[in-house]
């Protein structure tokens, strides 16, 4: 926050104190609500994860220390789900950032009159509810009702008898494709915001100095967009790591497509094993924290500075 200039010393500190108090009054309720809806469930989940606790056998609830964590971490099912989640996260985020950057460039350079229409058109997939888009993709590829096998039967490997949801590779392909289709617009919007923050004079100066297009992109545009890229990658990586809807609807975890969220859901909601399921949720939470940490270290960006509040 900017400090007001001028005024007497005593008055300024009064005013600063008032401002701080007002800040608390304004942000306080939201802060309390946030604590209630995030910190409390997290602590509760951690507490539950230390018990052997099944919802339909409340009488048998017993403290078992870290045994739930030992079971989860020593089980190949967990590590397979972890690996699948990691692959989905890496592939989708990478493809989305590249595609999104390309779309952002198109939008940035597009003729002014087209820009609004283009932006709206690109945003349409993002506006669709994930469950709806998952069903749409599922039915498009489904062997009995889908049209993809008929439209693309000229592609080697695709014919009328290809059951997309019966193999790991093809299932993951559809899951990731629908994820990419749906969330690339979000990335491209964030990157567009970043692009428009790159000072025009810097680019012009580079051009005058004889830098090629690639050089300008690499030395001027990208470094100046670092904050925007980081925000985009971070948000998407966190979202992608918690992927649930697409997998739940398309395969429900069949053929080695179980992801961590689905495993947590299946354990605590499906099996009603609250203790074991909470342990998986806590581990998932730690993974997400880890991603945040790595992303912020990797890009060496202070999030506050990304908002222009250095």
């Amino acid at each position, binding site marked *: 926050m900017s400090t007001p200039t001028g005024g007497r010393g005593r008055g300024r500190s009064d005013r600063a104190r008032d401002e701080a108090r007002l800040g608390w009054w304004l942000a306080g309720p939201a802060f309390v609500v946030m604590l209630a809806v995030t910190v409390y469930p997290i602590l509760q989940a951690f507490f539950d994860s230390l018990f*052997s606790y099944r*919802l*339909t*056998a*409340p*009488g048998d609830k017993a403290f078992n220390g870290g045994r739930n964590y030992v*079971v*989860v971490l020593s*089980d190949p*099912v*967990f590590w397979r789900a972890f690996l699948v989640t990691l692959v989905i996260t890496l592939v989708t985020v990478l493809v989305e950032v590249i595609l999104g950057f390309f779309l952002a460039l198109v939008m940035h350079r597009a003729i002014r009159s087209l820009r609004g229409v283009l932006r709206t058109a690109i945003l349409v997939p993002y506006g669709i509810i994930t469950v709806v888009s998952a069903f749409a993709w599922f039915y498009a590829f*489904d*062997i*009995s009702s889908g049209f993809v096998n008929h439209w693309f039967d000229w592609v080697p490997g695709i014919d009328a*008898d*290809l*059951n997309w*949801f*019966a193999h790991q590779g093809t299932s993951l392909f559809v899951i990731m494709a629908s994820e990419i289709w749906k969330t690339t617009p979000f990335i491209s919007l964030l990157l567009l915001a970043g692009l428009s923050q790159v000072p025009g004079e810097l680019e012009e100066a580079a051009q005058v100095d004889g830098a090629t297009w690639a050089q300008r992109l690499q030395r001027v545009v990208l470094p100046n967009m670092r904050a925007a890229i980081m925000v985009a990658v971070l948000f998407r990586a966190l979202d992608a790591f918690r992927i649930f809807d697409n997998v739940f609807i398309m*395969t*429900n*975890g*069949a*053929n080695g497509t179980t992801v961590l969220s689905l*495993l947590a859901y*299946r*354990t605590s*909601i*499906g*099996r*009603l094993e609250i203790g*074991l399921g909470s342990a*998986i949720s806590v581990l998932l939470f730690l993974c997400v924290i880890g991603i945040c940490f790595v992303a912020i270290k990797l890009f060496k960006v202070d999030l506050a500075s990304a908002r222009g509040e250095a």
Partner: protein
Amino acid sequence: MRRRARHLAALAALAVALPLAACGADDGTPRLTWYINPDNGGQVELASRCTQAAEGRYRITTEVLPRDAASQREQLARRLAAKDSSIDIMSLDPPFIPELSEPGFLAPIPDDVAEQVTTDVVQGAIDGATWKDRLVAIPFWANTQLLWYRKSVAQAAGLDPSSTPVTWQQVMDAAADQDKFLGVQGAKAESLTVWINALVESAGGHVLENPEAPADELRLGLESDAGRAAAQIIGTIGREGLGGPGLPTADENATMSVFQRDRGSFMVNWPFVWSATNAAVDDGTLPASLVDDIGWAMYPQVDEGTDARPPYGGINLGIGAFSRHVDLALEAAQCIVTPENQAWYFATNGNPPSSTKAYDDPDVQEAFPMADVIRDSLEQAAPRPQTPYYNEVSTGLQETWHPPASVDPDTTPRDSTDFITAVLRGEALL
């Protein structure tokens, strides 16, 4: 114009009067909430019929549960664990009844009521509503799978399933010889457990040897001749492509559409396929000749000469243990399951009655010419393992017996036994 105005006025009057009527009924009349599984509106109609019959003693309102059985169970279990007093009556899928009964989530059924609601009821439905030798739910409708076949295909194979029961081997040979697809449910879902259980039971075995034991003492019966016979049938159908390319994702509806198409041959499925196929013919999406080509018979045998144990499904009514009006809920449930109501429900919604009397209803016989086969099938039907840990057993089976092509009689029964045992002991994740 005037006519239209009058219509509008009538509508407006209704719009005002209906909410008023609803408000009026709230005064004093106990309201019973019935959690129903989605159907074609039959349970809503039954609720209003029984409300009328109660003459002001109670009023039944309905709440719709999610579409698939697993999600219905999840919602009910969560609510009951939180002692939800709004659950008075619930439509329960039989495999989940022990799980809800064991922790005392279901109100006990008094002996006189139990005797009344089990008179003239098919044995499969009584078994499905019983836990630890006590009736814990009220039998409502009972489902079973039949063998549906295309008469042309059966004839070409020299089979007449309606007079002599056929075996799985004959059905598989017929499909292979004529290059047709079998309709079986190979999707990784509850329907796969239904299939596995029916095969194991038909071969004289049981998925669980001691279903009433605590989790860490449950013994599986898959490492047996019956388990291997079931694995042999599922594995062969999977590997030889007899179920078509859609087999690993085929649920009951997908199976039905394979059966209705040119390469359909034999199918095991619930009776809803009959009303669904007729409805599709009425809509003109399927040719009328198809219906004449469809025959039905008892579920196929595993060993020739040994009666099959067809799948048992359906819905039983549980009474919420935390309900404020347990006595009224019991009374209402008894009204819902009268033979007349069951017969009406079957004729209009296609869900077969558990009451043997309801099958003699002329409307039933007209809508479902196979009603007698269904009743016989229900008398032979075997329920899925009745244990509070049913979800673990079922999901464990799906995890190890899917995809069908990977099922091998030498390894699958052992692998699934080891896996499910470890899960039940809390040593492995599902």
